[in-house]
């Protein structure tokens, strides 16, 4: 039997559809974004996170979800008494929401990182910061991801330069100041979700960690998951108390490691 929709029915349907989310929201308080991601909820625990003092920078619209610029900064002092211990980044709409974790120390100088991440679709990207005082700060940003404007992209990569690293650090850091370290490691960051032309799943193969030590003490560490873009890129800060050696060590699947040493001059 054919059904006809009158104009009045249509208006009623539309109004109902528009009101439905409002009703749902008033019936049960909408959960905060971190409550919908188990790992983030576990991290926050019983804390009541504030949204103050954390800044997430993301483009409003990204035409290339395979490498979206992300910067997270927590505007808190980094002293021995109180500092930002870690920042955890989540992308709820990705196959696995954990993107990366960054562990700081008072010698980090600033709790700020910049990187490039993968986003599967338009979604909410969130960050949780845990302070040494036990305080938790959380914030989220919406980002729109369109399909790639680019017609063609090479799916292959040069296998010869995997684990090749690049590092840039200031020639001189003022005493008490923080210097910006920029680094990149060549690596495909194979997600384990992709198939090759023959339909075989390519096994997961990613860079897992970057550890920065200053005179053998760890001052910064980053842990990567498969939502970090290929050729992991990272910008972070170091605040060495004296001149000394900064060693960066990358660890990837398959036991592959890369190490780079820089002499930092504080004067």
């Amino acid at each position, binding site marked *: 039997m054919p059904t006809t929709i009158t104009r009045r029915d249509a208006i009623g349907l539309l109004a109902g559809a528009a009101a439905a989310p409002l009703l749902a929201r008033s019936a049960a308080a909408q959960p905060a974004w971190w409550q919908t991601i188990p790992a983030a909820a576990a991290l926050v625990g019983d804390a009541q996170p504030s949204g103050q003092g954390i800044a997430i920078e993301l483009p*409003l*619209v990204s035409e290339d979800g395979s490498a979206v610029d992300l910067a997270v900064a927590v505007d808190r002092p980094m002293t021995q008494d109180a500092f930002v211990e870690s920042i955890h980044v989540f992308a709820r709409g990705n196959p696995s929401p954990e993107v990366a974790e960054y562990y700081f120390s008072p010698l980090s100088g600033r709790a700020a990182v910049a990187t490039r991440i993968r986003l599967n679709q338009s979604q909410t990207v969130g960050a949780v910061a845990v302070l040494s005082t036990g305080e938790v700060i959380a914030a989220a940003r919406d980002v729109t991801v369109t*399909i790639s*404007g*680019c*017609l063609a992209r090479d799916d292959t990569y040069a296998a010869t330069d995997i684990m090749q690293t*690049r590092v840039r650090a200031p020639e001189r850091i003022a005493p008490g100041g923080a210097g910006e370290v920029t680094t*990149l490691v060549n690596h495909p960051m194979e997600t384990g979700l992709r198939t090759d032309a023959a339909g075989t799943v390519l096994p997961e193969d990613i860079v897992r960690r970057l550890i920065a030590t200053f005179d053998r003490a760890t001052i910064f560490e980053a842990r990567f998951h498969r939502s970090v873009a290929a*050729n992991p890129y990272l910008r972070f800060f170091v605040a060495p108390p004296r001149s000394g050696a900064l060693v960066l060590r990358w660890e990837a699947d398959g036991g592959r490691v890369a190490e780079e040493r820089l002499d930092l001059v504080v004067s």
Partner: protein
Amino acid sequence: MSSGTVIWLGLAIGVAFGVVAQLSGFCLQSGLRGWWGEGDPRKVRTFALAAATAIVASQALDAAGLVPLGRSIYPLATFSIPVMLIGGVLFGYGMILANGCGARALVLLGGGNIRSLLVLLVLGISAQATLTGLLAPARVDLAAASSATLADRTLPDALAGATIGSEAARWIAVAAIAGLLAVFAFANRAFRASPLQIAAGLAVGLLIAAGWYATGNIGADEFDPQPVASMTFIAPIAGSIQYVMLSTGVALTFAVALIGGVIAGSALAAVPRGRFRLEGFTNPRAMLRYILGGALMGIGGALALGCSIGQGLTGLSTLALASFVAVGGILLGSLLGIRGPLRLAPPTP
């Protein structure tokens, strides 16, 4: 930071192009009309000389190791020949409908032509719709269904072999293509007698190379390996419209600065000479025709990865095989608009 410098260079290159194009009337569309139909016979030669200059200068930059042209979007190995060709044809026909390409519309807008504003808005929106919006799924499906992988990405690659080294192949290809274009240009007596047209051709060609140098050398960031680029107008016009609306959340780019520069440069050259004149439509049918032209240029340019300048000069300067396909499409589409059963009379807006 280097990215700031690159944006200023984009603006400067845009201003220079705007000035040159306003003074000389640089335009492939009026050139082809003059060649295949009625009009100034010199302008197609100006375009040919610009292409020849761009090829020689860009290939010299690449050969000197200053700009990796292979890292631009043009030398594709895997692409869809039909999509590239159809895109070119749509763009070429749209260019005849709208009486000028996207770059020409920017220059005319700088001179007070408000018809161009309509063309640009329609072009930008339809280009973005094809790249990432309503038409994007169709584009992706079409490209996926018809893509093929060529053995070689560029003409020199195709020539190089056991007997010819890659550098020799490069200069053979440059000599053949740029030589043909230059001979074509200077074979015309009216063109030879026009210092302004000759200068315009040389200047536009060098601006293409300047764009490569800005993004591929000055702007090269080993921590952010982006494709190198030069003057192109389809995606940048769309990007500029988007930038106007979303500038708090998207980064300013070389391409967007270039677009602003062309409008400003054209106005700079028009106003002191008393050439700035507001012009609009007097005829709704012409308006419809310009809208259709803008839409075809946007869709076609997005499919072909570039316009008369983006593929015709910048793409060609890489000697990419894909660019020859796109340029062939643009010429074919223009030919259909000028001669044959689908031909269009010059518009009377």
